[in-house]
Each structure stands twice: as C-alpha cells, then as structure tokens.
C-alpha cells in the first residue's frame, strides 16, 4: 500500500493576539509558532498505521517555504519514508485550486494506492484541497474519515456526518481520503526522533519544474480579486466580570445560583 500524504504548516493562534498586516491581506506570523495542521497530524498517523499493517511506502508532500521542512521532518520521524517540498515561490496568493494544482503536478507522476490529506486546515479553513486534488487526478474520494478499513483492494471509509451519525462508503484503490480529527491517537514525536531523520534528503520542486502555466497559480490564477482581513465585528459580547479572583468568583457564584436555580 503506497501512500501519498499531503500536509502543511500553520501558525498556532489558539492563545495568540493576532495582528493583521497593514495591507490587510494576511496576519503577522513572525511571533507565532508554526505547527503541523491538526488534521494533517491525524493523517500522518493514519498513513503510518496503514503502512505498519500492509507494508508499502509513504511519501509526504508539502507546499511551503523552507521553514515548512519542519512538518516534513516530523512526518518522517513518525514513519514516512520520503519527503517532497514544493517551493512556495510563485504560489503566493493562490486560491485552494492553485495549491491543489501544485500538488497535482507532482503527484501525477508518482505511483500510489492511497492519498491522505487533512479534512481542512486550521488557518484558512477552506476544506477544499483534498477533494480538488482527487478531481484533478480523476480518482474517487471520501472526506471526513474517522475510520479506514482495507479489504481486498477496496477501502471502507467511515465518514463523520452531523449529530453523532456516520456513514460507510466504499472506495476502490487508488483513491483519496481526507482525515477528520480523532480518527486515531497520533504518536508522540520526540526531539530525538526528529534528530534521527535530520539527514534524510528532502526533494525540492519549483514552479518552473512543474509545467504549470504560471497564470494558473498565485494571485493571477486565483478566483479572488481582493481579500481584506479584519478583527471580528464588535457584537453584544459577554459582560466581562473583572476584579480579583475572589471578587470574580463571588459574582460567578451568584450568577450560577440565580440562573441555575441552585
């Protein structure tokens, strides 16, 4: 079972005070820690588990800048065998289709049985790249997988729907699956583990190598004319209770007693 794995790096913004760049097109990322996209981490683990069971090779691919090699090394440390980085240059300002096109032009020449991607990414949250890629490669796909079972050249994918409901769908091989969080428990990656794969070579690809018409990617190829980022509009919002922990809790206790009928 040869697997191609698409991953990306995203800034961790959970507790960050995000600042928007002056041109309004992006956020300031300098002070933010870059991490593997949560959904992709589950995808890496799933690929490694499939490999452990059925053998084969995992090729992990990212499209990003040099720093994004970190997520590739991380995937190698978890059990991927080969890594490819498609350099970001020329892809800046791409819409999801532009990114999928970059991945497509590398993947189309590789042998594979399965492609795994995260269901979405934590930054822009388009949830498009995996399915677009399947469409370009003309292979069947299923999104939001929470369980994958391989049986006689067929894959049964359990998809997560809403309200604790799921569906099983059957895919032939080759096919593409996007991974939902919680599908497995991703293994821990130690610093030592990453150091061990430090010397593995990461193959690099550049836009010029890929025979993609340059007007199909980047801002030129994007369906988006302009994008303006802004802080959320000031809504009604919560009444923020201020004071010392003592005071705050006194008030909270009052509210809970009153509204909860304690």
């Amino acid at each position, binding site marked *: 079972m040869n697997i191609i794995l698409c991953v990306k790096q995203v800034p961790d913004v959970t507790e960050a005070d995000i600042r928007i760049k002056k041109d309004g097109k992006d956020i300031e990322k300098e002070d933010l820690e870059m991490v593997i996209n949560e959904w992709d981490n589950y995808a890496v683990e799933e690929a490694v588990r499939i490999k452990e069971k059925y053998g084969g090779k995992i090729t992990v691919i990212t499209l990003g800048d040099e720093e994004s090699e970190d997520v590739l090394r991380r995937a190698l440390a978890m059990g991927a065998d080969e890594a490819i980085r498609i350099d970001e240059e020329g892809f800046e300002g791409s819409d999801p289709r532009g990114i999928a096109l970059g991945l497509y032009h590398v993947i189309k020449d590789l042998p594979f049985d399965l492609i795994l991607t995260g269901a979405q990414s934590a930054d822009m949250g388009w949830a498009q790249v995996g399915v*677009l890629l399947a469409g370009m490669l003309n292979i069947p796909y299923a999104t939001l997988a929470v369980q994958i079972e391989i049986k006689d050249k067929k894959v049964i994918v359990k998809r997560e729907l809403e309200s604790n409901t799921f569906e099983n769908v059957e895919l032939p091989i080759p096919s593409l699956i996007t991974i939902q969080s919680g599908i497995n428990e991703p293994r821990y990656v130690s610093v030592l583990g990453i150091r061990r794969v430090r010397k593995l070579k990461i193959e690099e690809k550049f836009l010029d190598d890929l025979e993609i018409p340059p007007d199909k990617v980047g801002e030129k190829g994007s369906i988006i004319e302009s994008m303006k980022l802004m802080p959320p509009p000031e809504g009604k919002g*919560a009444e923020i209770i201020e004071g010392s922990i003592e005071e705050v809790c006194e008030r909270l206790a009052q509210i809970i007693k009153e509204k*909860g009928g304690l």
Partner: protein
Amino acid sequence: MILVLAEHRRGELRDVTFEMLSLAERISKESPMEIASLLLGGERGFIDKLKDFCDRIIFVDSPELKNYSPEPYLEAIKKAIDATSPKLIMISHSSFGMDLAPFLSEKLSLPLITDCVDVSLKEGRLATLRQIYGGKIFSEIRLKPYERYLVTVRPGTFEPEIREKRSASVMEIPFQAGTYKRRFLEYIEEKIEDIDISSADIIVSIGRGIGKPENIPIVQEFADEIGAVLACSRPVADKGWLPKSRQVGISGKTVKPKIYLALGISGSFQHQVGMKNSKTIIAVNKDPKAPIFNIAHYGVVADMFQVIPVLKEKLKK
C-alpha cells in the same frame, strides 16, 4: 437565478436548506433574481415543505440520489445547471457540502468559496464574508467576474425564515444513473451507554485548555459539587479524555441547559452550533480575544485552574 441545493438525510429535510433559502431571499432583494430549490432524490413530500420558500423547485428523482454520493450528484446537478443557468449555487458547509462542493467546482469549473457567513451579489459580482483562524479573524472577499459562482454556507448562521411567501412551480428532470466508483453502504448511529448531557440543567464543559487528562478530576469534582454534568469540546473527545457522548457541537450533541460553563473552550462555530441556545453561557478563557466571548453572556478572562477552586468554595456555602 439563485439555485439552493436542498439537503436531506434519512427522510428528513435539513434546517440548513431553509437557512440558505432565507439568505437567497436577502440576496435577491439587492439584485432581483428568481430563487430555485434543487431537490435530488428525497421524498415528494419535501416539495410541499419547500414551496413557500422559492419560485421554482427542480426535482431530480432516482434511487441513486436517495443517499448522497458525489458522482450521481454531479451528473444531476450538471443537468439542473444546464436547465436553469443559475448565477449562484448554494450548498451547505456540512459533511455533505464539504464532500460535494469542491468536486463540483473542479468538474464543472465553478469558482467556489467555502464556509461563508455572508454572501452578496453586486452587479453580478460575488462578495462573501468568512471567518478564519478559528473565528478570530474575519475575511472579506471579492471575486473576479464569472458567469456563475458556487458557495457553501455555514450552517446555523441564518434564520430559517423568509419575509415573503412564494409559490414554487415544479420542474422534473429525468435522470439515467451511470456506474460509479464510490458506493454508499450504510448509515451508522453510535449508541454509547452514558448519561445524556442534553437533559442536564447545568453543564460544565471543558476544552483543549484543560491541558492534560490528569486535570480532569479537578473539574469533575467541581461539577459533582454543584450537581452539574461534565461535557467537552471536540479535542477532548478526540484524545479520548472524555467519551464521545460528552462532546458538544455540530458533530456531537446539541444542549440547551440553564447554565453552560465553558472552561478553556475557544468557541469555534462547530462548537457554538451545539450550545449557543443555552439560557446562560459563562466562559472562562485566558485569551480575551477568544470567540466564545462573543456569544457568552458572562465572561472571565483568567486561568480556569485559578477560578475553579475558589468558585467551588463559594458555591459550597
């Protein structure tokens, strides 16, 4: 024309269909246009439910369309587009739309913007509003000019109501199923033996801010003390720290307790869908910019582990 793809599953038309039709009505106020519902498979009875909400219903019926699968849906939607030439096509940003929309976009060359919380058409150009970075930033998007646009709309964003009643005419399009590579097998509903959080009066809910499983007893004891039930956001259930039956949100449970106390939960839309109708929402979060504060009634910007012991004491008395 605005074409809204009706969403249904297991004999039920889903609310988000009407939410999209209400958004369509608003868009058509600014740029006058017919509104049509596209019903693929499903039950004939759905037609009556949709009639008041649109000018046309396009019905494509076939056993292959009863349960969603992308390939027959693509073929049916292509037929409907050819027959109606819509300017804008709307699908829900649900497990259904997330699966289908990018496929349509690729196969039918439709420019697609996913997960919109607002959509407008001015002089034939699409503009949308999205939330990015877990809802901490908004992004206003204007698209280049195209003949046709495709959007997915975030569920739970619009009221499923319209201002003016319409009366739809029905058009049926015949459908000849082909052979497809992906096959729907079955639905599965997981029954887990556990308490039902949706019937609790007071819910104490923990998010990723809980940090590690060793911290859960601290909150469990607090919840027990005040007679509350312990629930969680998705990452806590994903990691197996609490059972899946405790997860609140779009893919978990919907709850409406008297009090929902959110501890270390950022407030993503998928979480909000499951708890925003709680009578009183109290949020404790270290980050003053956490989106949960936009929907909470009361907020405390603090470390939950400093708050819990003191609050527990206060409630004991």
